[in-house]
């Protein structure tokens, strides 16, 4: 089929890269935003704009809140198909958990409840709350944490939850990412000689390829490790779910054996039992961490078999000071507070695994590295976007001559995934600032409307992209790119202004007070506006400089559509 290995790699890179590139663009962009997901939450929920808080007292504050919790109505509704017969009215509590990080002013807590008459006896329904640790007040449940509950899941699941479809698509895209990186390196004949090369004054096809190579190669370790560690994180749970499918019985047995070994009861005893002071257990855990030279705060606290004689409490350390995602868990008997188990040191394999997981999930406190990750993510976006542009530029003249519309469709999709995605994210932030705190009775919650704004804006951007890329079919530049850049600029400025108007937090105030979660996001949004204006003006200048000159400039590549990009250019 191909004359040599390099050509076969080029085919692989071009076509798999093109198709999965649209998914990867979403993954990279929202991955870059997820680096600051907690900060985006602050922007979107102004009541939570205060300093991060440590885990509050369990005995005094959290326990009464947990005791008042019930499963969320939506969660129960979703579970309706998982029970035999009618849905129960009462749900016995199974577990309580509280989770915080060094970037969270508010505390997320969750309670797991038994699902009576469930088809799977271990099935659970969940109740979630968000607590202000300063006073124990709970926040309204319908306020969407746009960063951590929308942009972040978009990064790994596309928010397509049916049958975990999104997670599978993203996993396949990550696999293709690895393939694209390897095949890209094989194709690239001047990887060192052109490492620093970007020639914007050459024609679009050449400069797009320069930028594609530049952003792909300089951040190659980042791209590779993040695609790989992403697959590792979901590997055992989703991509190779043998323990939950073929080996289900063995898995259950293993859990029981493990419980015997660790002394942490697998089942409830069925006898009611008290819960000793959890605060005393936290103090003991912190004393032991400090003794081991790892003094730290509590990141995650879990009470298993709540209310039962077999109840136990697990306390995990917040991993702010290391890459590896380890909890150094210490487990206590609920009834007495005696230590049942201290997690043993990690094996070599587990150390590698926690390092890979930790470097991707970033629980550490390191602002420089966070920003460098954003740079890595955005350079991935530039790499993919310039890949699309190269694809279109290389083929549009030939397609125009043949009357084919392939290049135009690709350009339309590219507009929707590159600029359209930014438009959608900004529309969501604007909706967040414009919608009232409480939606009228009978309407969907505020969070739902924010989601509609996001998807609605994206659909509009896609339709606009398809419509305004028509000139590509005549081998000219699409005005869609320029117009959506202007849309980004307008929406971005509007978002920052609306933040000011609705909360009083303008940049002078947030920077003056050193409140970087909000100031940083406002500045980043304004920077996007500036880049969008610059891009729009350049595109206009290029379009005005005679649309056909571009085509006439380099006739040599016109017959090279099926050839390798590098050989075509050589």
């Amino acid at each position, binding site marked *: 089929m191909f004359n040599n290995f390099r050509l076969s790699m080029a085919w692989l890179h071009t076509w798999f890269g093109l198709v999965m590139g649209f998914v990867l663009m979403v993954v990279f962009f929202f991955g870059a935003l997820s680096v600051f997901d907690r900060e985006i939450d602050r922007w979107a929920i102004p009541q939570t704009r205060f300093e991060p808080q440590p885990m509050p007292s369990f005995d005094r504050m959290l326990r009464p809140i947990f005791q008042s919790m019930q499963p969320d109505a939506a969660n129960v509704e979703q579970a309706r198909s998982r029970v035999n017969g009618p849905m129960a009215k009462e749900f016995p509590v199974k577990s309580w958990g509280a989770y915080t990080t060094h970037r969270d002013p508010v505390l997320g807590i969750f309670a797991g409840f038994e699902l009576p008459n469930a088809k799977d006896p271990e099935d659970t329904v969940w109740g979630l709350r968000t607590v202000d640790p300063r006073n124990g007040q709970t926040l309204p449940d319908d306020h969407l944490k746009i960063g951590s509950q929308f942009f972040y899941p978009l990064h790994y699941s596309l928010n397509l939850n049916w049958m975990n479809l999104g997670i599978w698509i993203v996993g396949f895209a990550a696999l293709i990412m690895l393939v694209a990186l390897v095949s890209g390196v094989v194709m690239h004949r001047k990887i060192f000689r052109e490492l*620093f090369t*970007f020639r*914007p004054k050459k024609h679009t096809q050449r400069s797009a390829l320069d930028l594609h190579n*530049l*952003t792909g190669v300089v951040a190659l370790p*980042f791209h590779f490790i993040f695609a790989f560690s992403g697959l590792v994180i979901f590997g055992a749970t989703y991509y190779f779910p043998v323990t939950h499918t073929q080996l289900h019985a063995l898995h259950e047995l293993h859990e029981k054996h493990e419980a015997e070994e660790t002394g942490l009861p697998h089942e409830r005893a069925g006898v009611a039992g008290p819960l000793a002071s959890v605060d005393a257990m936290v103090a003991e855990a912190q004393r032991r961490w400090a003794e081991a030279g790892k003094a730290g705060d509590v990141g995650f606290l879990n009470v298993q078999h709540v209310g039962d004689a077999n109840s136990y409490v697990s306390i995990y350390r917040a991993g702010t000071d290391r*890459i590896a995602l380890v909890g150094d868990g210490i487990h206590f008997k609920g009834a007495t507070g005696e230590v049942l188990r201290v997690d043993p040191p990690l094996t070599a394999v587990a150390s590698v695994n926690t390092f890979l997981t930790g470097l991707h999930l970033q629980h550490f406190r*390191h602002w420089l*590295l966070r920003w460098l990750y954003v740079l890595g993510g955005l350079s991935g976006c530039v790499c993919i976007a310039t890949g699309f542009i190269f694809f279109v530029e290389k083929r549009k003249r030939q397609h125009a001559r043949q009357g084919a519309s392939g290049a135009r469709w690709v350009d339309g999709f590219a507009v929707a995934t590159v600029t359209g995605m930014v438009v959608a994210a900004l529309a969501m932030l604007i909706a967040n600032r414009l919608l009232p705190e409480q939606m009228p009775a009978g309407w969907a919650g505020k969070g739902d409307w924010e989601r509609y704004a996001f998807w609605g804006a994206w659909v509009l951007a896609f339709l606009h992209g398809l419509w305004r890329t028509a000139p590509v079919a005549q081998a000219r530049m699409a005005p869609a790119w320029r117009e959506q850049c202007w849309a980004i600029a307008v929406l971005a400025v509007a978002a920052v202004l609306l933040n000011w108007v609705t909360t009083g937090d303008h940049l002078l105030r947030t920077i003056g007070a050193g409140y970087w979660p909000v100031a940083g996001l406002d500045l980043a949004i304004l920077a996007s506006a500036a880049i969008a204006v610059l891009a729009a003006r350049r595109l206009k200048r290029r379009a005005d400089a005679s649309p056909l000159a571009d085509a006439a400039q380099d006739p040599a590549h016109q017959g090279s559509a099926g050839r390798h990009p590098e050989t075509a250019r050589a």
Partner: protein
Amino acid sequence: MPEALLYTLALGASTVGLAWLALSMDVHWEQVRGERDPLPRPTAVRLRWLGAAFLAASLALCIAVDHPSMASLVWCMSLAGGALAVAFTLTWKARWLRPLVGWAGRGGAA
């Protein structure tokens, strides 16, 4: 804030090191020094050693602030950032890199 200073130095060392590595290539040397002043071979070798030394210094600075596991990530990402900065400087403001090779005399007298 010594930490911030060390990070700044580490990022700076990465960028300067990569700039020297770039300048050890004919095409980038010419962007900075002009076509009439070709790159002598000994200068190219010296630039490569200097570049490598500065990248090593950058790694040492990263390790001085953070645990080696964290430092390796910061260093690796600083290379990506530095390389982008060098590439774009060469594209738009190549002359800014002149001071880095000011010591390498004209006509190959390096």
